[in-house]
């Protein structure tokens, strides 16, 4: 319930755009996220077009099959998230809890795989810092790779933490068919992070 | 009233020309606006019994004072194109120019001159620190490079300014001196503690004398 007070006989739509504050706020925030990732991904594109030789062929350094699998994991976490939302839409508490747990699990698993990937890559000399770098391509490759995937990873981490909080609230029965803005807002963020990964995976790993 | 330093380059006149066109246009606009403001301040200041006219605007006049500035700025933009591409379009770099190389570093200008053979990167090249020597009335082309940070190659009297970016290949600029004499080379981009003293001298030689100077220095190397 947002704080706008409306005299009888006049509905929010008169002034708002028919989207409650929480949800609208999250969307607005996501727009800024779009620009943030534009800065990072844009930098990657520009640096790469400026110095193609600094970047290795897809698969040459990066483990594409592993990451493709990880991408699949994230996609699954998206569908489980939306399932959780659909569940509470129908007032199905059990479904909500179940699907939220699945989502948290998948999110954590994604991070685990990414951690393993980092470890493997680093052990082959693919590191962000210039001095220690000794893999195919040039240090720029390592720096851009870890920055892009790292900031996405950070977003997933925050997402998982928030999701745990939402799950706890779900188990405390805080969400009902009538009011579950928290779940919906969480979902928006989560799907956005998934969406960003879809772009990153294509640009960083496949192209 | 201090004003534009005397222009001693072939292309500078055109740039100054645009400067003056903009100056006059803006001075007129300035006078109209400030004059109008002062007039209104005086004419419509509060007096007993004055009631403001209740109007919400008039789109006709608004269209007018939108269109006029638009035309003006479009014209100004168009005027600037010519000299801009003349000064920057690599395709328009002079082919018959005296070629020099300037290497910027904190906080000095290292100038490399071709020897008598007129070719850079040959055995008889020679260097001079913070001294730019050039002939009058001949196109000069300077190849720029930087050692460390961004510097800016600035010749106030020649209306020349170009940032020198480390790691950027093939940066160059060109101009033609019209007056023999002593001028200044400055650094216009903040480049560190010594930015302020990163200066050099520019010597423009009368016809013929440059070659003599060139020969002398090449020999002494």
């Amino acid at each position, binding site marked *: 319930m947002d704080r706008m007070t409306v005299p009888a006989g006049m509905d929010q739509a008169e002034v708002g755009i028919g989207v409650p504050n929480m949800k609208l706020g999250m969307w*607005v925030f996501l727009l800024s996220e779009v620009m943030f990732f534009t800065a990072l991904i844009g930098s990657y594109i520009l640096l790469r077009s400026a110095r193609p030789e600094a970047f290795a062929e897809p698969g040459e350094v990066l483990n594409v099959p592993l990451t493709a699998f990880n991408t699949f994991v994230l996609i699954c976490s998206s569908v489980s998230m939306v399932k959780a939302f659909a569940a509470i839409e129908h007032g199905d508490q059990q479904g909500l809890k179940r699907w939220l747990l699945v989502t948290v699990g998948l999110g954590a698993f994604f991070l685990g795989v990414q951690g393993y990937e980092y470890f493997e890559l680093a052990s082959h000399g693919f590191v962000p810092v210039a001095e220690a770098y000794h893999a195919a391509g040039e240090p720029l490759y390592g720096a851009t790779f870890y920055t892009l995937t790292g900031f996405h990873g950070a977003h997933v981490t925050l997402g998982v933490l928030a999701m745990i909080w939402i799950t706890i609230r779900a188990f405390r029965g805080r969400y009902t068919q009538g009011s579950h803005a928290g779940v919906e807002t969480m979902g928006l963020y989560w799907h956005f992070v998934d969406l960003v990964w879809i772009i990153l995976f294509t640009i960083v790993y496949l192209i | 009233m201090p004003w534009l330093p005397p222009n001693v380059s072939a292309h500078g006149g055109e*740039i100054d020309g645009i400067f003056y066109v903009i*100056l006059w246009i*803006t001075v007129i606009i300035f006078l109209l606006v400030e004059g109008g403001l002062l007039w209104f301040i005086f004419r*419509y200041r509060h007096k007993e019994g004055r009631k403001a006219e209740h109007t919400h605007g008039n789109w006709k006049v608004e269209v007018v004072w939108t269109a006029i500035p638009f035309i003006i700025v479009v014209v100004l933009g168009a005027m600037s194109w010519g000299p801009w591409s003349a000064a920057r379009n690599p395709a328009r770099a002079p082919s018959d120019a005296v070629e020099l190389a300037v290497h910027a570093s904190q906080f000095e200008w290292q100038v490399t001159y071709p020897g008598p053979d007129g070719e850079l990167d040959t055995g008889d090249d020679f260097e001079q620190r913070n001294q730019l020597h050039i002939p009058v009335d001949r196109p000069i082309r300077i190849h720029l490079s930087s050692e460390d940070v961004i510097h800016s190659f600035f010749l106030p009297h020649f209306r020349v300014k170009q940032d020198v970016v480390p790691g950027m290949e093939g940066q160059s600029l060109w101009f033609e001196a019209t007056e023999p004499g002593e001028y200044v080379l400055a650094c216009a981009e903040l480049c560190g503690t010594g930015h302020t003293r990163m200066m050099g001298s520019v010597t423009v030689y009368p016809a013929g004398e440059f070659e003599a100077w060139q020969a002398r220095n090449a020999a002494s190397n």
Partner: protein
Amino acid sequence: MATTVEHTPGQAHAEHHEPSFWRKYIFSTDHKIIGIQFLFMSLLFLLLGGLLALVIRWQLGWPSDPSMPMPGGSALPESMVNSGIILPEFYNSAVTMHGTIMIFFAIMPLLVGVFANYLIPLQIGAPDMAFPRLNMASFWTAFPAGLIMVAGFFVAGGHSAAGWTQYPPLSANPEYTGVYMGQTLWLVSMIILGFSSLMGAVNYITTVINMRAPGMTWFRMPLSVWALFITAILILLAVPVLTGALILLLFDSSLGTSFFLPEAGGEPLLWQHLFWFFGHPEVYILILPAMGFVSEIIASGSRKPIFGYPAMVLAIIAIAFLGWGVWGHHMFQSGMAFTLGAGFMATTMVIAVPSAIKTFNWMATMWRGDLHFHVPMMHAVAFVGMFVIGGLSGVFVASTAVDIFLHDTYFVVAHIHYVLFGGSLFAIFGAIIYWYPKMFGRLMSPTLGKIHFWLTLLFFNLTFFPMHFLGVNGMMRRIYDPTQYEFLQPLQGWNTFITISAILLVIAQLIFAFNFIWSLFRGEPAGPNPWRANSLEWTAPSPPPHGNFDATPVVYRGPYEYSSPLSDEDYLPQSVPPVDEAPGGPPAPDDPETGDGESSEPASRQEG
């Protein structure tokens, strides 16, 4: 209608129990308190920025002149000022921090942190922001950012010295400046400040979209709200780009990556593209709210509806939108592709047009008005006069050809200060004095206000107008000692003159500081509507209680119905029901009762 009151939690709250001092003034979620917190913080930073300006001016006025030791210089460590002589290292830091603090910690928070917070809910008739706790977080993120930025002055190696534009490699490799910790603190502080701005922007946008009072349609919003709303969008979309760039720069300078460092394959120009893609929208972030406040003040000062309200709104939108396509005009001489430069010249030229519309519409608003020159009005009119000068000097540098000579000269410095001081800061002075009674319930002394205004206008022009001459003579920016250049020596007289004017300018500001503080306690008490203005905030008591309005106001008309034939007064507040609506004739405009729509039908019913 009774339901309305219930629905206003702030209201119930305020009546029932008094919150503790901490909840009420320190960790308050009340948008008004938060706005005032920003006000005090950014005024202190404004003062600091002003003092740094004096350091700059002292050096330029009497460059390294032993007979003119810097006053108080002995208080500073040897690494900054040695036996009265300002060291070049410190000069560069002073310039960098002057620019940084003025733009990010003084003007931006003054315009947005203070007024977006304070005005938006009041002017759209909302009890508070959409996310009050997020709003509090926004201030308590900005505050530590400020502390970190100030801390930079005290660390070994001094504060960042790479200019507020932080061009790498200079900023990316500490070896080039000898600044280590200071540079890191600068970057960290700016990143944190970015989060603060972001939280603010999300809040302002959501609030304006969703929480307008009934009847407050888009085209009945005061121009100040329009300007702040569009500004919030600019912040929302521009700041993250800066944050991204800052993070890359931080990695370069402290983790050994090489995004902007050529020796390991980076691209210095990439930073410039990212920075200015943020940077130019930023400068419009610094002017649009000012334009909004000036529109408010000029309309009420002229007792006349704003001329061409729709055009004014469209102009704001146009400036904001075009502002995204002009960033390259800061890079004309940077080695950027020359065709790209030409393209940016075209867009930059065009962006002068919406500003033209605003300028002429302000003048047309005064035309045939009934001008009351109270102190805010003086500042608003001065804004128009000064902003035009800054804008016109912008047109010189917008020409790629002319910019070859003027780039990085004092002509640009003059431009900056005419738009930022003559523009933004004059509007801020006006706005502070205009809304001060609403904030603190007392008026600032008009006498002191007038003295401050005239001295400021005088010394501002004496300080900055001659800078145009310096620039036209080719005097470079960011140089520690112009007298080293023979061709600049004839100008030294001007430099000294500017310095003396600048000192007097700063002293004149102390009058404002005194007036501001003195009036908090001694100022003449103000009623709810001292300027007899129309917008909703003036129907609330001064200062408004937690929750702002006794009942949600209902809006019947635009905010600029001055000297309307419909009212025998020369103003007609937005929430006064039309005569035919209200039983028992129109209430007198400044009757506090007009705050609520009780006596009327919902506004949705009629068109005004």
